[in-house]
């Protein structure tokens, strides 16, 4: 059973734990640097489809595009 | 206790929001009483009204999230209140240099700004900055 899903599946106010990042090396690296490393707990603050989502990652408010967010796999907490 | 306060603020915001809505309509269509016709200005008031009114329902439920709309509303009211006070001052300067006549006309945005000050005070006491 797969128990993880793209970050875009979380609604505002929900928290998730990063499991994996899919995608090319450039994107993965970029997301790692801003804190999306596996086991980090992130909280979705704002998510209106369409439009970017706002996530609390390690204490910072990071706005990321929906396409990029879809590459971040999280386990809902 | 806290929930009570949020509810009280909700009622206050409902009243303020409705006044904003009312004046917004007067400004958009213009000429009613001594409210000037100012379409853009009226639309701005509509936005402010919407901000307050969106928060009312939640605030009446005692939810914290409702409070955020009131805070944003207070912020917008202040921006426009202060803006029109500055413009009033500018008009007075214009009169001093002999370029225009001057009437001490308080745009509704100005007195509405004073009307939200109690709400601003309540909120400031309530939340941690």
């Amino acid at each position, binding site marked *: 059973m797969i128990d993880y899903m793209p970050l875009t599946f979380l609604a505002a106010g929900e928290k998730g734990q990063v499991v994996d990042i899919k995608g090319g090396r450039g994107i993965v690296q970029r997301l*790692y640097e801003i804190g999306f490393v596996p086991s980090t707990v992130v909280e979705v603050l704002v998510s209106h489809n*369409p439009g970017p989502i706002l996530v609390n990652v390690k204490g910072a408010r990071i706005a990321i595009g929906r396409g990029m967010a879809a590459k971040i796999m999280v386990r809902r907490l | 206790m806290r929930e009570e306060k949020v509810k009280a603020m909700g009622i206050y915001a409902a009243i303020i929001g409705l006044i904003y809505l009312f004046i917004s309509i007067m400004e958009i269509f213009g000429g009613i009483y001594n409210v000037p016709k100012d379409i*853009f200005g009226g639309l701005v008031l509509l936005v402010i009204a919407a901000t307050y009114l969106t928060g009312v329902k939640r605030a009446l439920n005692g939810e914290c999230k409702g409070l*955020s709309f009131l805070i944003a509303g207070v912020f917008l009211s202040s921006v426009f209140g202060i803006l029109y006070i500055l413009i009033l001052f*500018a008009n007075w300067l*214009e009169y001093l240099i002999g370029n225009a006549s001057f009437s001490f006309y308080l745009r509704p945005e100005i007195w509405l700004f004073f009307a939200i000050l109690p709400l601003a005070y309540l909120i400031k006491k309530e939340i941690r900055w």
Partner: protein
Amino acid sequence: MTTVALIGNPNVGKTELFNRFTGLKQHVGNWPGVTVEKKVGKCVCKGKEFEIIDLPGTYSLTANAIDELIARNFIVEGKPDVVVDIIDATNLERNLYLTLLLLELEANVVIALNMWDIARNGGIEIDVKKLEELLGTSVIPTVATTGEGIEKLKDEIINSIKKERRKIKFGYGKEIENKIKKVKEIIKKDDELAKKYPVRWLAIKILEGDEEILKKLDGSKYKNEIIEAAKNDEDFESVLAEKRYDIISRIVEEVVTKKGKEEWTFSDMLDHVFLHRVLGIPIFLALLYAVFQFTFSFSAPFSDMIDLFFGWLGEIAKQNISNSMLASFVSDGVLAGVGSVLVFVPPIFAMFFALALLENSGYLARAAFVMDRLMYKLGLHGKSFIPMMIGFGCNIPGIMAARSIENEKDRIITIMINPLMSCSARLPVYALIAGVIFGSGYMAGAAIFSMYLLGIALAIMMALIFRKLLFKGKPSPFVLELPRYMFPKMKTAMLHMWERGKWFLIKAGTFIFAVVIIIWFLSNFPWNATNGGTSIENSYIAYFGHAIEPVFKPFGWNWQASIALFFGFLAKEAVVGTFGALLGSTQGGIMEALKNAHWFTPLTGFAYMAFVLIYFPCVATIGVMLREMKARYTLITVTYTITLAFIVASIIELIGHLLGFS
């Protein structure tokens, strides 16, 4: 001289600290990437002179982004004596990542634990002694905005030059360490490499497959051996990033205590509304409207004062200078021309002030967020919005701000549409024409506001077209850190306003001054034929104006308006300067004179405003464009703006006529 480099994540207060150190005032802003250029300042403290270098704000030191590369190269090659790493005390977890990288680079690091005030008030306790111990560097709590802790930081910088730093190795676990060791051994064989770079750092970078570093191996005898040893099939960069965050979370656990449970912060609350699905964009438009009302209505009396002052000076000059040619030169040429441009200092400064407030409060980044949704659909990028907003002040810094957009296609589109943003040099033209055709009051304000909206609409349209024709594909992904909301500081906003607005004064004093003199000459000579400037119809400028008039005749613009457009190529505010010189100094100022001249009807005037908005990026903007992108794209920009101006002005007049305006 001792060199000190400042480094830190975006929005940690680096610029603020730089200003504290150097007193050299510079732009303070909120979006990442504003300090792409290297800024250098000097500071004398305790009798020693320091050179302070402001490095770009970065999260990391990879070769992936130009900012990071600049910072890294400076530390590796420039070997500054001290690197001051500024970290945000309220968010150690993120900020320490860069710190670890710097320590890995074996830089001489001193840590400024900034935003100490916010941490203190927010109930975050940090055990500074412990942090120093764990990192092996000195850590000084600071508040850049008030200057708290700055003296101590200076002392520590001086100390750290003499002191041998205790090196702390952050281990990455046995398996990785073994690999690092293996590569290290081989690097050590090459004396030159080992002397030039920190060996452990070099080994790690090679393992990570950093392209820039691999290039540095060229010329080493051991290149192949090193690469052979570093061969691995793991994604080392990601593994190491993960390990580093592990180390950080252990450090944070030891030094940080948070009092009170986590609540919704003020920023969370405001974001809930300002980024609201429905309310977000209307609120943004409302605030934009406030900026323009402030710019236009509030500054009006100050402009009038300047106007009156120059009118009065002109009268005095006319009455007291007996030589009629000189009198005309001074009053109709210099005073009327320069005065008519200086009148716009108040609105321009007001606009920069208001934009600075939006920016420093943290709202501008939110505007990028709410607009991203729209922008994406239009083939643009949320980040493109910040250059566009700054473009309202001046297209030049707007175009430069586009550097923060990593993707080249996105960046070029953003630059190409920037001239459609109504920069403040266009404001004088709008203000003058709107005042003439609509009088003073809200109607004129609305007309001006509509120019800004028109610019945005056209920019969006052109972006769509460029995306379809020139740069196929989707905009690149959007990542932006939203700073926390802050009450903007009056002093910072004023500084900001001055920094960005002073170019206008400089231009008025040099460039515009020259244009004005040329126009005066052309409109008063031949002196006898024009009867000392009284019958402009016989002047050179009239010949010239009549020559180009046919082009603009269909729009209902006379030769004076046409010639003003010609001078507007140089700088858009020269349009106003031209009117000023053509009308001469008159009682009641240029606006009265233009009103009485009846050169514009509401419709032709409105179309004229639109034309001025679109028709050409000014010469200075073209210069920057050539620097920032290929000449081909600059050429396209010039061509499309000219074409678009004619099309839009025609449409406005056509629709206006159909609606029965004249």
